């Protein structure tokens, strides 16, 4: 029997993979993908509890998250493209202009 605990473990694992990906990877595209992993980990949680509690609100939330993620992806990719055109790189270490 698959209990909410399983779903939460999967979700936590996905979340951690995403966070670590954001932390350690230098390629901004990979970081972007890692953020998608984080969002989807949340989605799994929402869906799991929606099914568990027999409440559609969680699924509606998940749809919202997917929509926001799509918008975020569009904006983020645009930024990356613009950045690439300026610096000819997608290395995150080069993106340190906003410091003291």
């Amino acid at each position, binding site marked *: 029997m698959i209990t909410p605990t399983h779903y939460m473990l999967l979700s936590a694992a996905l979340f951690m993979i995403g*966070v670590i990906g*954001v*932390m*350690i990877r230098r390629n901004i595209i990979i*970081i972007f993908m890692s953020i998608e992993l984080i969002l989807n980990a949340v989605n799994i949680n929402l869906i799991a509890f929606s099914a568990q509690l027999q409440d559609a609100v969680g699924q509606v939330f998940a749809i919202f998250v997917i929509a926001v993620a799509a918008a975020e992806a569009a904006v983020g990719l645009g930024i990356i493209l613009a950045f690439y055109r300026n610096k000819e790189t997608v290395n*995150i*270490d080069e*993106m*340190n*202009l*906003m*410091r*003291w």
Partner: protein
Amino acid sequence: MRYIWLIPLLPLAGAAINGLIGIRSFSRRVAGALACAMMVGSLGLSLVAFWQLLGLPHDARAYDVVVAPWIPNIPLATHTGIGLLNVPWGFRLDPLSGLMILVVTGVGTLIHVYSTAYMADEPRGGVARFFCYLNLFCFFMLMLVLGSNFLVMFVGWEGVGLCSYLLIGYWYEKKSAADAGKKAFITNRIGDWGFILGVFLIYSTFGTFDFRQVQNAAAAMPIETGHFGILSAICLLLFVGATGKSAQIPLYVWLPDAMEGPTPVSALIHAATMVTAGVYMLGRNAVLFQQAPEVMTIVAIVGVLTALMAASIGLVQYDIKRVLAYSTVSQLGYMFTAMGVGAFSAGAFHLMTHAFFKALLFLGSGSVIHAMAGEQDMRHMGALKKYLPVTFATMMIGTLAIAGIVPLSGFFSKDEILFQAFLHNKAIWAIAVVTAFMTAFYMFRLMSMTFFGAYRGPSWESAGHAAVSIAALHGAPHPTDPHAHGKGHKKDHEVTHGPAEPHDESHGAGAIAAFKTDRGAGAPGVKDDAHSGHGHGPWHGPHESPTPMTFPLMALAVGAIVAGFVGVPAALGGNNAIEHFLEPSFTAQHVEARPSTSSGRADTEPAAAGRADTQPPAAHPEPVEGGAEAHASRRVELGLMAFSVLIAVAGIALAYRFYVTKPEISQQLAERWAGAHRLLLNKYYVDELYGATIVGGTFRSARSLWTVDRKVVDGAVNGTGKLTVVSSWFSGLTDRTIVDGAVNFVGWMIQESSHGFRRLQTGLVQNYALLMLFGIFAFVSLYLIAR
């Protein structure tokens, strides 16, 4: 007679139109015609008013008219309490002012006509300006003589001084003219100071400015014989004013310099009218002066000394106008002598005759100057008789009149004064007779040097071209001294010689041309006009003046002949009509109507008696009183007349001998008495004395005040400034150290303290994410633990 206020108003209208519109847009002819028309209208009104005045009974010949209110009932403290100051624009026509308006408008009209020709070479706007000033002068002069109270008179008094200043400085680009105007104005101002103080004193004593009220009040006061009371103080102050306006010692110095003005101005203002204002004012206040016999004595002494001094200076002057100027001062001295000895009618009579013959002489000299193209030095004239027949004839009449030859006008008026002086004080009479001799001498010297002898001026054939080039070579000499570079001229200046050598001639011509150029520089545009002006472009030698100039000469000559017949003395079978006519102006009127009748009569009656003692019957018009005494004095009077005519003839003969038949005598005399000659030539060094004492003193005191200003006032200001600088330096120090220090310290502290924190801002996204992660981790841990 109700319209006497129009008499001064017409010239004012002329002045306003010429001044506001004329200067910009009138031609010479229009400006002159307008001014003349106004004066003719004024003269006509004056004649009508005078005629109506004559129609009144003798004792009622006075007419007051109030044109407009001026100063309404202002409470003002007087000597006796609070009075109401109420001064109207009032005019008063009585015998004295009637005589004066006739003189002013009559002579004024003739001089206006004369000026239209004399000023024809001036630039267009200048002519309108000239006529504007001249009309304005006539307005103020008529205000002066017609005013019925001291304040209206003072308005006129100041106004004529202003116009005198403006007209003396008419050629204001010429420094000497501007200086002369300034000198006249400042000297007059000293006199005006005395006059206005006298007027103030009159108000504080009598509480009114009205002539009649003042006279009636003064007549009721006791005569101040042997001491100086309030009336004496008033009279003395008024006399100070008169010395300024009428050029008496010690304030006469401005009048000779006033000759810098155009000649018609000299004739009108500085001979016929304005300078007699002081005499008129004394006559107007005759009642006051009669109450102050000590001041009368001062007036007589000052007058006779001025007459002598000015006449003696006139003996040696070379500038034709200056001789006449000193002559004017001298004749004014006569008038004051007359006033001082109590012969007010004689003074006013001489004022009138003098206006005729001195205006005539000035206009004649203007004609001569015009003919000689600006030359004023008599040493460069001579033998002009044949070129200027009309000018010569009329000037000769004027000369004989001023010398006192029977039966010209000067004879009657001067002999009246001499006779009154003789009765009053023999010493004064003696000085006056010496002066009469000098008058005859210097006037005939002027005539001889100008019209007789040999011609000593520049030649004129083909002088036109050569003159300019020589003038250019020699540079422009001072205009009043055109012979400055002619050494040869200087040597034989008084010696008659035949036609001068060519060398000298060209010098003279150069001087004249240079003078014309100088005048041209002084008045822009005159140069072009002078050559196209009225057809004598390059100078063609002396020539008779045009009709507008000769007509006034002839009219004035007629006046100089006949004016005396209104005052034929009783001794010669006349009735001395003018004295009888003027008498009401010199006595207090309506004394009977005053409440204090008895005391007033008691005070005035002995006065009249006392005067009757010193001035026996002939002084009074009625030949009935005192039989034998009158007879004796008639013999004395006839003797005196014969004597003074003799003196005049002697003066003329001597001058003729010195300057025509044996010209070398005067030269020898001048060398023998070199010291005296130099003293006279330099006018007793009075100008130098005044320059050293008064002008120099003013400068010195001004300089010492300036030093005080620089040291004390500037020192205080600068000290304050320095103090402020020092204190603000300390203030700045505080500001810099404490305030700035605090601000900077705060900034510095924040900077220092933020050193560590700003390291957090790596700019690396992953660092931020890591920190966020730690943060979340920490908070969640905290949450879990704390729960």
